[in-house]
């Protein structure tokens, strides 16, 4: 299979394109993903933006306005419509522009999409994907920079994936679209312009599989989404001092690949979890609790969490740069678990 270098944005877009070609029941809905009703643009075979950050660019031209739909600013209505359509025969993808907006529509995701199957005694299936932007770094302030995936992971009936590279962005999206359960797919804004090798053909990364991004023997660093990149930077830094870090990227948070994480901890006996989300009831706490409950005897030191503080995301670059976990803080934490 030929492999090219693509940006994360291109890889994400390609996965949706290939799945929409493969399966006519896959549709896409969201705000400004198709460019309104702009006849002058349609005439030119263009859309306005293809989504705020261009994730869906070009899809309306190939698949048309029936399968690729602009929505009003009515997240409850169109995400709920995705649930209703999924339980009656389509495989909708709904774009929740920024995850920060989940507060206006969460009922349709967590009480409807996530629970219909269980409440109906298994007599419904809700194959849908909600893809949404997360994370800081854009100076977008408190209501456009959150992660919040811990909240979705808390909910039984939802699956959650957090890609970190162009390669897994594509494979996890194909996996999410083909999955028969509702999947929330979290895209970190800052990753969109990162690039890497991506095979041309349509491949699937199964949900629930972690990736060991770097083999190491001295300490395990579990790093989610963009934090994987920072963890790898930190590992390089530490390698200079002969400290050999293993970096595990969960890729899916629910289901979580517990065995890969636990095996690594049992091998290295030290654990640091890096999570850009706020700390309380977070994925970081979940993974540390997982290790404490299931690998207690293997741990040689107290695990450490490197997370954002328990505060909203500040606007000022001077503050946001302090807010987001950094390679330096990861280095510090690894040294601490090794001390």
């Amino acid at each position: 299979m030929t492999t090219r270098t693509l940006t994360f944005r291109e890889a994400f877009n390609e996965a949706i394109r290939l799945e929409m070609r493969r399966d006519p029941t896959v549709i896409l809905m969201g705000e400004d993903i198709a460019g309104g009703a702009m006849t002058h643009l349609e005439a030119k075979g263009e859309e306005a933006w293809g989504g705020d950050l261009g994730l869906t660019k070009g899809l309306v031209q190939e698949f048309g306005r029936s399968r690729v739909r602009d929505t009003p600013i009515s997240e409850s209505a169109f995400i709920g419509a995705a649930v209703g359509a999924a339980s009656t025969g389509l495989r909708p993808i709904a774009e929740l522009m920024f995850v920060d907006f989940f507060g206006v529509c969460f009922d349709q995701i967590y009480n409807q999409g996530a629970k219909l199957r269980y409440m109906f005694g298994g007599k419904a299936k809700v194959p849908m994907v909600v893809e949404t932007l997360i994370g800081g770094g854009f100076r977008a302030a408190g209501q456009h920079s959150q992660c919040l995936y811990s909240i979705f992971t808390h909910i039984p009936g939802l699956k959650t994936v957090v890609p970190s590279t162009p390669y897994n962005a594509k494979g996890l999206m194909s996996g999410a679209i083909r999955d028969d359960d509702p999947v929330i797919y979290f895209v970190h804004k800052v990753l969109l312009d990162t690039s890497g090798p991506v095979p041309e053909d349509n491949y699937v990364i199964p949900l629930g599989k972690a990736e060991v991004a770097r083999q190491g023997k001295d300490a395990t660093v579990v790093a989610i989404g963009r934090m994987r990149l920072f963890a790898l930077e930190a590992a390089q830094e530490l390698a200079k001092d002969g400290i050999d870090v293993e970096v595990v990227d969960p890729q899916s948070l629910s289901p979580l690949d517990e065995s890969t994480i636990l095996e690594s901890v049992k091998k290295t006996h030290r654990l640091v979890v890096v999570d850009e989300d706020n700390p309380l009831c977070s994925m970081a706490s979940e993974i540390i609790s997982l290790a404490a409950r299931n690998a207690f005897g293997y741990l040689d030191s107290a695990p450490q969490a490197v997370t954002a503080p328990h505060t909203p995301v500040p606007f000022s670059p001077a503050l946001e740069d302090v807010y987001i976990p950094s390679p330096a803080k990861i280095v510090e934490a690894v040294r601490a678990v090794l001390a």
Partner: protein
Amino acid sequence: MAEMTKDRLLWIYERMRLIREFEDRAAQLFAEGKIPGFVHLYAGEEAIGVGVCANLTDRDFITSTHRGHGHCIAKGVDPKEMMAELYGKATGSCHGKGGSMHIADVDRGMLGANGIIGAGGPLACGSGLMAKIKGTDQVTVCFFGDGAAEQGTMHESMNLAAIWKLPVVFLCENNGYAQTTPAHYHCAAKDISDRATAYNIPGFSVDGTDVFAVYEAVSEAVARARRGEGPTLIECKGFRYYGHFQGDNMSYFTEEEKAQNRARDPIDAFRKRVLERGLLSEKELADIDARAKQTIDEAVAFAEQSPYPAPEAVLTDVYVSYA
């Protein structure tokens, strides 16, 4: 109503009687402590659910509410499975996992009772969107209460259905109350159907105790939906006989009001009309009364005799697969 066949008249009466019988029995069983949880009864509103569903096929969809028993029976869900579900038995519509507030039968187009007010609006847009994209002629009726009319989801759903011309009928069951709160307090609009103006769609209010009026209004709206012309908002004004849920003392009802309601009984009104016009005979109606009673007797017996789900069932049906 001229064009209503005798079979349809019989079907309408049978469904209304089945609902009434089911609800009166459920009230008893709740009082006896045999049915747990929150139970919201539909008695008094039979003409709405039945008048609506008389316009639908098995392939059409409805989204329902917390007060869903009547919608289920009108849409053809098996009363046996329904009663077993109220008991929390393994043989229930949802194998005991949902209970009264979540009875569903997706294969029969019943997309579920719902514990969340206004949640059916977006779901109805979804089945409507499916039909539109696949090019089928399936229509979805979204039942919602007067109280639900104040939930943002209903506004968003009616606007979305209107701009996308989705084959959806928004059917507001205005029984005058949201729990203990009267519609004239919680709703600023004169009539809830006035809100159709906000979406530039047809909207009208009809007498929810007159099954013929409901039937006619809905048949027009369903035809419009099947023609691809988009949604309609219909408000059916009626009442409920029982409290909001079982256990409600109903102190907010005045005696006058209760008397007025009894005088507007939708089943009595139907009987009077079909008998006066000689469309059905006393005997035909009596046979249906007997059959309905028997059906519900059997449903209760079935529920009583059915086993509870096995404890392990707690863990199943969360996901199709969970690696």
